[in-house]
């Protein structure tokens, strides 16, 4: 019986536990994460009784936690998917509402902007509309800013969201680690408390909502969690250890996470799913593109509106300025747009150019003008030309075959340049033309050249016509009044000086100086008229191949019979001749010739002759050997004889004489008359303003007259520059010093005698007209530091050997008597010069020479200097009542007695011999003072200075009493406007002359200049507003080098500053004229068959409504006062319809942006709905297993209760049975 009792009591125990399990289920019906528990009952092991088994009752085997691993993992994944859509849906909506909102969105602001632009275009003169346009522009700028900051707000929120998710993840992983710790106490899963496992699963589910995880369970139920795709990387829960995630501090501007940021940092694999994945997807797919596109749009908007604005003219007539600027304060350009203009009149509504019809036009032809900016060109079209004027950098251009020319380059408008022509063949020229065929520089083109040149391929306009109207013209006659020059030129230089403190003073002008290269031999004749110096046509240069020396002014003394000895260096051969016994010029000539021929080894090459009325001795060598160091020497120094002066006819000296020219007056038809009163009484003239007069003339025939005049004039002049000769029965008075000659008067004693001066022809020297004085310089130089005293040197045939010191060398050269003078220049150079202008020869020595220069003949150079001789004083500053001193000489004292300008001039000229100053009245009736010295460098000192009390006294000139030097006078000349280049520059250019039979107009050539040792240049230093085309004409090859500066003109600005007039000069022809200078820029034909003729000029496009008639004109100029012009504003309005943002209009680009965000939003919503369904199913699937249903539990309760009651009954029955048995006994 005890069995029955045991079974029943066991059962009661089991059911009691089952009931408490059910109660537990019921109690936890609302506990989150609770899994329903079930009791598992098992029958006890049966007992064997004889041959059968008998049951032993029930036992509670286990309380089982309902759990489905698959459902659980499915739910976690579904959680991750679903929650990943939440940020996408929520925040995309936010972005949508921001961008699509009427008040915050950009679209309405853009609409308002373009609407107000459109309204402004209907009345551009209205300042109200201009201001409202600016307000709407500011509206767009601030709308961009608002949008951007709204998006910034979303950025901040999503970042904070992400960081908070990360914090939650760290909390949950920490919990999991603790759970793992608890779980690790048991080694089996069955041994784990259900509550702990529930907590584990709940935490995992919560984690899956935040981020997609990969989960791995161990035998005893502990769990490892990874954020990556495998369990090897991104492990956040590793057994009992949790690894936090955190923001990567190394990346700024973005939120990136790393694993274990404060420990062993590990990059986090790409996170997907969960809130975290959702946030990141939103940021990368929606927020960042939206923000970026907004920035791009802002930039496009700013750039495009600024472009339009910059292309127009504002209310002040100025070019439009930028409307907006993008600042640098924010990383988002949309957030930093600022409006730059606050003055409505600065809005550029007007067109840049306008065209107006002439007031007297016959037709009603209407013209419109449009400007298309050409891309700024490079300075030169020919890229092989480099910016280096050195001949070594020159490019060779060759003209051969049938072609008469070769194009050199096009020079862009506005670029200043100088082109040099070197190594040219004879007759080759540089030619400079505009694209419209205006020849600016060069020489007249032949018909063949014109025919060949004028093609668009050469850069000419298709309908260009040739014109040489402006060819080589200067000043007002020149092309556009520009100073362009062809030839060789030197300008005023400036010397920078410094005061004692090293502060730079005002730069001082130095007169222009043009220096040739060394002239060794002159071979070619330069015809008369082929060259011009400062506008003065030069006579012919016929080179004399013979070496010559002219001794003039030699005179015999009274006391000594044999007054002179002689020395010379002829072809390096030193000749010294002893005392001559001759007492007359003729005898001296014969004696000198005989002696020289003997000294020359008996050859007849050396010839001595008399010239200039037998007053001068000419020595020539037909072999052309250099004659130098030639001089007569007085035997008795005290004798009153005169050795005269020597002129060596070296190549350089010939050029000098040619350039300076002589002033001369020729009397043709001169007659001396007959009778007692025959002959002339008086000759008077002025040279350089100084009066010369000869009276009591005795001569009665023309030769004697010449001789007498020459002798007297030379005495007066105290020099041998004046000669009087008879040339073809004409009496010629010539001044070789080139002083200007005036007031010539040859007065007969008695006109009745028949004496007459005849017809007088006066010709001024070149130098007196050109303001240029040519001198020759013959020198060789070497830096003192490079001298090598271990070597020797041979100069002019004289050897200098074994010289050890610089002073020794200088001494030796100066003592050698070879016509050379050695000295050390301030620049630290040893200078050896020949003052006579002869060439210096350096002998060839093996191993080089002391000066380390090449052996050879060093020809002299020619220096052309601008003479600043004149000083003009305005008549208004003169005060005739005041005293005047000039160069220390008293000219006027008070009372002056002078009442007018002429009186003052007379007074000054009276003293000119002492003062060296002469006076004239100039063209403007002002006083012109001039120095009489040949170089024009004499200072004009004006006095009187201070009186006894130290007060400055005023003078008749009304000038401050001080020294007025050449530099001051030069500055005065340069201060004049317009400056005449002839007064400041040295300009040697080409002229034209007639040659051949029949006569052909021929031009001087660069080859002629090259012979003179000068480079031919095309000088366009200040640039030209038009493109210039350069060509080389003439067969052969030539080199062109160039030096340029400046950038090509902005054609728009350049054209706007001009005013051009198109005039129809014939039914098929029109000209384009520059209104400022009257220069005809183009003269073109047009096709009369075209209904709407168009004219294109430098990017201007002029369209006529129909053909104009002859005389009609249209003026095109920059718009400066068209406040009511709306053309540019129409462009601004047109921007609304122009696809500028990647093929879309600005507004459409923005709307498309809304659209794409909208699409993403829609997509996210749909995805979210779909995932919601999946998630519901996953929840249901899990719930089916682990959920507690109260009805179920009620049933279980009843079931277990009944079983419990039955077992209790069995216990009772077993007790009764036991009692029954006890009662029996």
């Amino acid at each position, binding site marked *: 019986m005890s069995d029955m009792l045991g079974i029943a009591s066991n059962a009661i125990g089991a059911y009691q536990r089952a009931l408490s399990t059910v109660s537990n289920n019921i109690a936890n*019906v*609302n506990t989150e994460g609770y899994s*329903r528990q079930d009791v598992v009952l098992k029958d006890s092991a049966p007992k064997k009784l004889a041959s059968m088994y008998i049951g032993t009752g029930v036992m509670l085997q286990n309380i089982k936690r309902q759990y489905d691993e698959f459902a659980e993992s499915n739910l976690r994944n579904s959680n991750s998917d679903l929650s990943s859509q939440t940020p996408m849906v929520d925040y995309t*909506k*936010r972005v949508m*509402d921001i*961008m*699509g*909102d009427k008040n915050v*969105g950009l*679209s309405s602001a853009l*609409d*308002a902007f*373009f*609407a107000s632009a*459109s*309204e402004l*275009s*209907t*009345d*551009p*003169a209205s300042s109200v509309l201009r201001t409202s346009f600016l307000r709407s522009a500011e509206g767009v700028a601030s709308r961009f800013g608002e949008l951007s900051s709204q998006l910034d707000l979303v950025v901040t929120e999503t970042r904070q969201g992400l960081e908070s998710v990360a914090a939650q993840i760290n909390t949950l992983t920490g919990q999991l680690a603790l759970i793992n710790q608890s779980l690790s106490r048991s080694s089996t899963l069955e041994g784990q408390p259900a509550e702990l496992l529930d907590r584990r699963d709940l935490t995992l589910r919560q984690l899956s909502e935040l981020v997609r995880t990969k989960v791995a369970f161990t035998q005893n139920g502990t769990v490892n969690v990874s954020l990556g795709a495998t369990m090897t990387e991104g492990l956040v829960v590793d057994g009992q250890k949790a690894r936090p995630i955190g923001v990567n501090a190394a990346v700024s501007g973005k939120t990136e996470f790393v694993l274990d940021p404060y420990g062993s940092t590990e990059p986090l694999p790409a996170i997907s799913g969960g809130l975290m994945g959702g946030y990141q997807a939103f940021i990368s797919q929606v927020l960042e593109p939206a923000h970026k596109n907004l920035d791009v749009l802002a930039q496009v908007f700013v750039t495009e509106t600024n472009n339009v604005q910059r292309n127009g003219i504002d209310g002040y007539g100025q070019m439009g300025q930028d409307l907006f600027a993008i600042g640098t304060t924010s990383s988002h350009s949309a957030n930093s747009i600022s409006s730059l203009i606050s003055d409505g009149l600065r809005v550029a509504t007007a067109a840049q150019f*306008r065209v107006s*019809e*002439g*007031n*007297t*036009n*016959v037709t*009603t032809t*209407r013209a419109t003008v449009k400007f298309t900016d050409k891309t700024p060109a490079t300075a030169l079209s020919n890229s092989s030309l480099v910016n280096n004027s050195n001949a070594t950098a020159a490019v060779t251009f060759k003209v051969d075959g049938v072609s008469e020319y070769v194009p050199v380059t096009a020079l862009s408008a506005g670029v200043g340049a100088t082109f040099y022509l070197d190594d040219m063949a004879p007759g080759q020229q540089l030619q400079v033309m505009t694209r419209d065929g205006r020849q600016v520089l060069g020489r007249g083109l032949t018909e063949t050249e014109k025919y060949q040149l004028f093609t668009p391929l050469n850069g000419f306009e298709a309908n260009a016509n040739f014109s040489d109207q402006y060819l080589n013209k200067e000043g007002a006659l020149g092309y556009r009044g520009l100073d362009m020059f062809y030839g060789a030129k030197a300008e005023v230089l400036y010397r920078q000086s410094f005061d004692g403190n090293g502060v730079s003073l005002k730069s001082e002008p130095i007169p222009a100086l043009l220096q040739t290269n060394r002239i060794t031999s002159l071979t070619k004749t330069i015809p008369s008229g082929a060259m011009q110096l400062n506008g003065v046509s030069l006579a012919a240069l016929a080179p004399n191949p013979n070496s010559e020396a002219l001794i003039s002014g030699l005179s015999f003394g009274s006391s000594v019979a044999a007054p002179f000895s002689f020395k010379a260096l002829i072809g390096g051969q030193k000749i010294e001749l002893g005392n001559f016994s001759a007492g007359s010029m003729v005898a001296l000539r014969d004696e000198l010739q005989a002696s020289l021929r003997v000294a020359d080894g008996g050859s007849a090459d050396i010839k001595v002759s008399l010239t200039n009325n037998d007053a001068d001795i000419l020595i020539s060598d037909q072999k052309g050997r250099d004659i130098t160091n030639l001089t007569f020497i007085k035997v008795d120094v005290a004798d009153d004889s005169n050795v005269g002066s020597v002129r060596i006819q070296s190549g350089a000296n010939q050029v000098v004489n040619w350039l300076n020219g002589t002033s001369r007056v020729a009397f043709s038809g001169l007659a001396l008359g007959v009778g007692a009163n025959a002959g002339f009484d008086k000759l008077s003239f002025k040279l350089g303003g100084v009066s010369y007069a000869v009276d009591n003339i005795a001569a009665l025939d023309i030769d004697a007259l010449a001789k007498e005049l020459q002798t007297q004039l030379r005495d007066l002049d105290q020099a041998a520059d004046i000669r009087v000769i008879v040339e073809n029965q004409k009496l010629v008075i010539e001044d070789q010093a080139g002083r200007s000659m005036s007031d010539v008067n040859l007065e007969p004693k008695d006109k009745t005698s028949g004496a007459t001066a005849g017809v007088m022809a006066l010709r001024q020297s070149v130098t007196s007209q050109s303001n240029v004085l040519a001198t020759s310089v013959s020198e060789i130089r070497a830096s003192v530091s490079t001298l090598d005293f271990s070597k020797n040197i041979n100069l002019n045939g004289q050897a200098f050997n074994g010289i050890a010191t610089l002073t020794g060398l200088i001494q030796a050269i100066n003592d050698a008597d070879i016509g050379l003078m050695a000295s050390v220049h301030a620049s630290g150079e040893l200078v050896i010069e020949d003052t006579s202008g002869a060439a210096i020869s350096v002998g060839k020595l093996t191993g080089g020479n002391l000066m380390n220069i090449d052996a050879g003949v060093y020809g002299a150079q020619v220096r052309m200097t601008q003479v600043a001789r004149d000083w003009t004083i305005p008549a208004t500053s003169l005060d005739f009542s005041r005293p005047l001193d000039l160069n220390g000489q008293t000219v006027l004292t008070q009372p002056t007695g002078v009442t007018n300008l002429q009186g003052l001039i007379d007074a000054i000229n009276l003293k000119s011999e002492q003062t060296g100053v002469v006076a004239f009245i100039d063209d403007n009736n002002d006083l012109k003072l001039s120095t009489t010295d040949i170089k024009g460098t004499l200072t004009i000192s004006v006095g009187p200075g201070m009186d006894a009390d130290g007060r400055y006294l005023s003078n008749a000139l009304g000038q401050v009493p001080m020294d007025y030097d050449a530099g001051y006078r030069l500055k005065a000349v340069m201060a004049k406007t317009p400056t005449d280049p002839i007064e400041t520059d040295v300009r040697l250019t080409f002229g034209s002359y007639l040659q051949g039979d029949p006569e052909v107009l021929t031009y001087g050539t660069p080859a002629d200049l090259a012979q003179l040792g000068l480079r031919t240049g095309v000088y366009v230093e200040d640039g030209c507003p038009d493109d210039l085309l350069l060509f080389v004409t003439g067969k052969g090859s030539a080199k062109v080098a160039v030096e340029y500066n400046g950038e090509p003109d902005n054609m728009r600005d350049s054209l706007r500053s001009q005013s051009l007039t198109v005039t129809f000069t014939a039914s098929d022809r029109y000209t384009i004229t520059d209104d400022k200078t009257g220069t005809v820029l183009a003269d073109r034909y047009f096709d009369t068959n075209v209904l709407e003729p168009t004219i294109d000029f430098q990017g201007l496009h002029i369209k006529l409504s129909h053909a104009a008639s002859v*005389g009609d004109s249209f003026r095109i100029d920059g*718009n400066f*006062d*068209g406040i*009511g*012009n*709306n*053309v540019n504003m*129409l462009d601004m*309005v*047109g921007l609304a319809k122009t696809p500028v943002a990647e093929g879309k209009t600005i*507004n459409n680009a923005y*709307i498309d942006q*809304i*659209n794409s965000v*909208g699409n993403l*939003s829609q997509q996210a919503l749909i995805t979210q709905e779909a995932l919601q369904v999946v998630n519901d199913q996953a929840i*249901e699937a899990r719930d*089916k297993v*682990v*959920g*507690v*249903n*109260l*009805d*179920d539990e*009620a*049933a279980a*309760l009843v079931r277990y209760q009944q079983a419990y009651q039955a077992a209790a009954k069995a216990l009772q029955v077993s007790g009764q049975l036991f009692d029954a048995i006890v009662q029996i006994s």
Partner: protein
Amino acid sequence: MKISTTLYFDRSTQMLGNLQSNLTKTQEQLSTGLQIVKPSDEPDKAALVTRLESEISKQVSYQENLKSVNIRLTAEETALKNTSEVLYRIKELSVQAANDTLSAQDRQSVALEISTLRDQIVSLANSQDANGNYLFSGSKATQPAFSADATGRITYQGDHARMKVNVGDSRRMNLNMPGSDAFVRVVRDDGKGNRVGVDFFQTLDDIVTAVKNSDRANIQRGVSEIDTLQTGVSEGVAQVGADLTVVDLQNNVLDQVVLRLKTTRSDVEDLDYTEAITRMNKDQLALEAAQSSFAKISQLSLFKYLS
């Protein structure tokens, strides 16, 4: 299938919540009258609405432009019509002056009247619009179109800018008329066989001088030249008239366009009340049903029957 008690409650409250949110939205739509209250309500349609708004704004701006053009053209028309009338009077007077029966003194008074009429035309040619812009001086709107130059002759001082404004997506129309277009030149033989253009007011001045001097030949020439001037002014009137017609036509076109655009926008954006109210009733019904069923079903529990 087994549903746990918790899940049942969760789902029920969720569904009630959904129904309530639907109702709230419908209520919001009804109270605003809009189908799309916020752009995010129908993200796919937000772009379309914005585009339509933008398009309407553009068309409205064209209409505004037309208003401005209309004002200006009307002013031009008035000035030119008046000029035309004054010219008729000048013609009358000139013809009268050409009449031999008139004495020199009569001609003086005629000359005086013509001179006054000429001044009237000057002031008409210098008419200003409501904004103070000179109508006929091209883009130099702030300067009188015709004024005396240095020599005292009245010449055109404006420029020849012929401006247009946008009045439609692909339609531009004339905004102004340079004075030289209406106040035209006459072409005269200068006596040397050359044809020269003579200014409008110079021509009138010449007539005044001719009448004053009883210069019959020049009066005759003047009479014929006035015809040329009249033609010029009439052509100006015709052109302005034509432009005004364009304004009317274009205004009608724009009204149509705006109406069409607004209709489209309304279709997208505005609420269909019938649909919305039906939807609201439906949702209301569903909510009530859900509430009552929840109340009933949640009462059902086995425990109720255990005692």
